[in-house]
């Protein structure tokens, strides 16, 4: 079972709350996904209002709330947002998203490392959204993150695992769970990430923007479970054309 900090998860599909056509559809899709960790942008909720629409619709006993700092542009703003969130939403978990660029929403590695260091000291469980950068992952591990969340492709692009080679290095090296975040556009992408050994995936746009988000949520649920099962069962290797031995290298042993 997947464990992050002190929480265990049966489902390895994490989801988001953006881009749905209505809160009702969002709620149905998230329930159908059986996701147990759902991220919500702090900037989207009215934390003063206990009846806030989004929060209200994801208020289920099996769903853990993961506030994210989307919208902040640097470490200082991120730390402030996380503290605000901890006070209002009563969770010390935070998905750290720092993207100074409003167009591609690409994460700033330097500010993310700085903010993580500070937030860990303040007792947060930090889940940083980052480029698929293996060195950055190790640096974040050193300052105490509970997992890393490298991107598969630009956020919202649905392009799949464009960063595959780097994701594989990250998975190979990491001592904390690796959650592929951003870019996953189809259940097959999610299954593939799981087959490569990712510990979980986070999917939002591909579900929310599908013609039928509830059915798509189910499809992702099945794909993630299938991918993980395949990883644990160990894939049969791909057979390559056998290279003909030019000259025997071990004949000296005879």
């Amino acid at each position: 079972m997947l464990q992050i900090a002190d929480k265990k998860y049966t489902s390895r599909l994490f989801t988001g709350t953006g881009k749905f056509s209505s809160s009702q559809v969002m709620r149905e899709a998230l329930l159908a996904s059986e996701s147990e960790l759902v991220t919500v942008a702090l900037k989207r909720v009215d934390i003063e209002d206990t009846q806030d629409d989004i929060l209200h619709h994801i208020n289920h006993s099996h769903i853990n709330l993961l506030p994210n700092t989307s919208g902040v542009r640097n470490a200082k703003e991120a730390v402030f947002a996380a503290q605000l969130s901890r006070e209002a939403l009563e969770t010390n978990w935070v998905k750290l998203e720092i993207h100074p660029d409003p167009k591609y929403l690409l994460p700033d590695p330097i500010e993310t490392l700085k903010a993580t260091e500070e937030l860990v000291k303040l007792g947060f469980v930090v889940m940083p959204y980052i480029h698929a950068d293996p060195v950055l992952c190790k640096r974040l591990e050193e300052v105490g993150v509970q997992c890393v969340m490298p991107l598969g492709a630009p956020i919202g692009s649905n392009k799949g695992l464009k960063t595959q080679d780097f994701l594989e290095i990250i998975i190979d090296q990491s001592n904390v769970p690796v959650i592929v975040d951003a870019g996953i556009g189809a259940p097959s992408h999610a299954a593939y990430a799981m087959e490569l050994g990712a510990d979980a995936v986070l999917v939002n746009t591909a579900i929310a923007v599908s013609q039928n988000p509830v059915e798509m949520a189910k499809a992702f649920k099945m794909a993630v479970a299938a991918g993980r099962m395949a990883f644990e069962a160990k894939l049969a290797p791909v057979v390559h054309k056998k290279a003909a031995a030019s000259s025997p290298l071990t004949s000296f042993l005879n």
Partner: protein
Amino acid sequence: MSSFKDVFDTYNWDETLQSIFSKTENDVLRALINTKRDLEDFKALISPAAKPYLEEMAQLSRQLTKKRFGNTIQMYSPMYLSNECQNICTYCGFSMTNKIPRRTLTDAEILKEVAYIKSKGYDHILLVTGEANKIVGVDYINNVLKFIRSQFSNITIEVQPLLQDEYELLIENGLYAVLVYQETYHREEYKKHHPKGKKSNFDFRLDTPDRLGKAGIHKIGLGALFGLEDWRADSFFTALHLKYLQKTYWKTKYSISFPRLRPHSGGLEPKVEMTDPDLVQLICAFRLLDEDVELSMSTRESEVFRNNIVNLGITSISAESKTNPGGYAVAPESLEQFEISDERPTEVITEMLKGNGLDVVWKDWTNNWE
């Protein structure tokens, strides 16, 4: 997990050995075809079931080595500084109870040896001592480092296990790498072979690479001394150690050595024999497990074996080594730690390497950045 001991303690020797011996031909085939191999694949590749696939393993090992290291091989030379030792090791010529003349090189003698080694072209050196803290403790080693730093681009030591802050001091003074072989990962057998002296502390030795990793060393060399226990199980634990270290100390490089017991004064017969094909199988299995790890071969092995193994995965070798302090220029006739097998001069070895299409690399580091 705070150190390798925590990982190691979750394993059992007999179960590990049984698991290796239960690997089937299918497990071997899968391990050969896989492009990313794990420790279960490694077990299959060192198992008896892989024996019929030795040529395939050799071809793959050669390909992977060429891809990562190119057509090159690095040269290094050992320099024994002292044969003083307060340990009893059943397999070692320097063991405390052996009645041999003891010598520790003075500064002047070191200079003589250095001059000889440098005249042969070497720029990477391996300093070796026994364990005698009052005579060849950290201060002695540190002094030697300061003394020869300007003479060599790359300095490795193979001495007693030290503490983290001691390693930090040595690194500051130009130390690049440390070789620390567990000898055997079989706890009880280890005790039998190291009954006395500081070396009898299995756990302290086991966690030495952790202390090195924490000290920020550039490279750590691992290995087991084959002959003390079953080579397959010892190699599995070496591989487990390697994988743990790579994940924990990711800024450090690693190398593996493959010493087989050699005759020495007061000699010990190997308990478990490791044949030439076994050793080839193991070297190839390490390469198939890890494309990046350096694989090192000393002069313990024979001429024929070394002529061929340089094509199969080895990335660094020594030549013309002397395993006695002062053996090159100061006291060539003194007693050696063990008898080497390949005694050919450096020039003959480099010609052999060139004949194999390999570029001989003498310098691959600069030790004056820090």
